[in-house]
């Protein structure tokens, strides 16, 4: 705004006006990339909606999902079955045998498989049951390190389809995680990429960016 205090200070070379290079080289590089400033083609929104409408008009029977209500449209390609088959093919199944939740003697392990979000990573977990909860020993040294407010987080999925966070870490080399949950309720373990959030945030849900996972079943 012409005549504002900021402008008068700026014009006078007041050092309180921050230099334009405070963003850092990586951001500067992106800001200098024409691809970041591209204008979206006119009418692309209509073409996207038309593509969806066209698929809806072809019509496939809806794919029922658990606990879902009636649908207003009937378009759902049957991808859930294919996704389940892929999980079985790549995830494998590890059987939990007689975990009684006793005292550190009940133990199982599982191999972690990559979702493809990060190439060429794998790992394994060994889960030991204690009265205080489940100790999860993670070995995934191929995970690239995340720093600067970014990290990984482990999750257990329960038999009622809820996620339980089990801890955060920078890399997968010799990590110990803990979960306050009964072993017989655990059906899967996963690792996601996460970022730091404000402490005032009421909720800390998974980003959904799964990098490694293992299916387990009691």
């Amino acid at each position, binding site marked *: *705004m*012409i005549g504002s205090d*900021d*402008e*008068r200070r*700026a*014009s006078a070379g007041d050092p309180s006006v*921050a230099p*334009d290079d*405070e*963003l*850092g080289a*990586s951001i500067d590089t*992106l*800001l*200098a*990339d024409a*691809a*970041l*400033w*591209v204008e*979206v*083609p006119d009418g*692309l*929104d209509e*073409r*996207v*909606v038309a593509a*969806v409408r066209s*698929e*809806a008009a072809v019509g496939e029977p809806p794919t029922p999902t658990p606990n*879902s209500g009636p*649908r*207003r*449209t009937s378009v*759902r390609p049957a991808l*859930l079955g294919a*996704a389940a088959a892929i999980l079985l093919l790549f995830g494998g199944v590890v059987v939990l045998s007689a975990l009684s939740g006793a005292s550190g003697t009940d133990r199982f392990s599982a191999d972690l498989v990559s979702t493809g*979000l990060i190439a060429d990573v794998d790992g394994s977990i060994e889960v030991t049951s204690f009265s205080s909860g489940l100790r999860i020993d993670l070995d995934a040294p191929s995970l690239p390190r995340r720093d*600067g407010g970014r*990290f990984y987080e482990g999750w257990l999925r*329960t038999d009622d389809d*809820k*996620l339980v966070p*089990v801890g955060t870490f920078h890399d997968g080399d010799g990590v110990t995680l803990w979960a306050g949950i009964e072993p017989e309720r655990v059906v899967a373990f996963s690792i996601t990429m996460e*970022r*730091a*959030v*404000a*402490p*005032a*945030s*009421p*909720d*800390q*849900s*998974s*980003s*959904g*960016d799964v990098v490694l996972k293992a299916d387990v079943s009691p």
Partner: protein
Amino acid sequence: ASAAPHTLGGSVHEFRPAPVVAEDRELALALREGDEDAVRALYARYGGLVFTVANRVLGDRQWAEEVTQHTFLQAWRNADSFEPGRAFAPWLATIARRAAIDVQRRERRRPAGALDDADAADSALVSLPPSAEQIEAVWDVRAAIDALAPEEREVVRLQHLEGYSHAQIADRLGIAVGTVKSRSHRAHRRLATRLDHLRPEDAGREPIGPPSRSEGGDLQ
């Protein structure tokens, strides 16, 4: 530990402030119900960012448009597997990146002429696609740019993309140099706040934005 999906309101990741994430949840529920208007709303919110990601990978507007259409079709098809309470942004960015890589590979398999005849800017000559983290950065920076006021965005564009000085920008826009500096200062402060997670740790700057989750605080 909370087991229910919930929002990420108040994240340092400011392109997902609480109201937007709450709207994402409503949008996800509508999408899962097969509501075509939800696709339109989803595109309105993220279409530009998806197109930017695709264009960044492919360097071709036509292919980027193809990828954008594919991304939203995939979102529509897979809405059942998307948990309300998650944010759409990383999900869509991942779909877009993978689709763009697929297009890149497809185009590389086309019959090729002499290498010397190829346009140096041809994306098929690029040997490695951007990583997921690089795509995250592209997404974040574009979202931060889009959130600027138009007059601030134009100053930033002329500074960084065109390489103009303040004086040159003032001349081009027909405004005072002080106005340019002021707009630049405000814009860069906003960008620094929104993109703090992309800035190097050794930048020697004062912390900008709320303290991080990794520092503990209310999570204890």
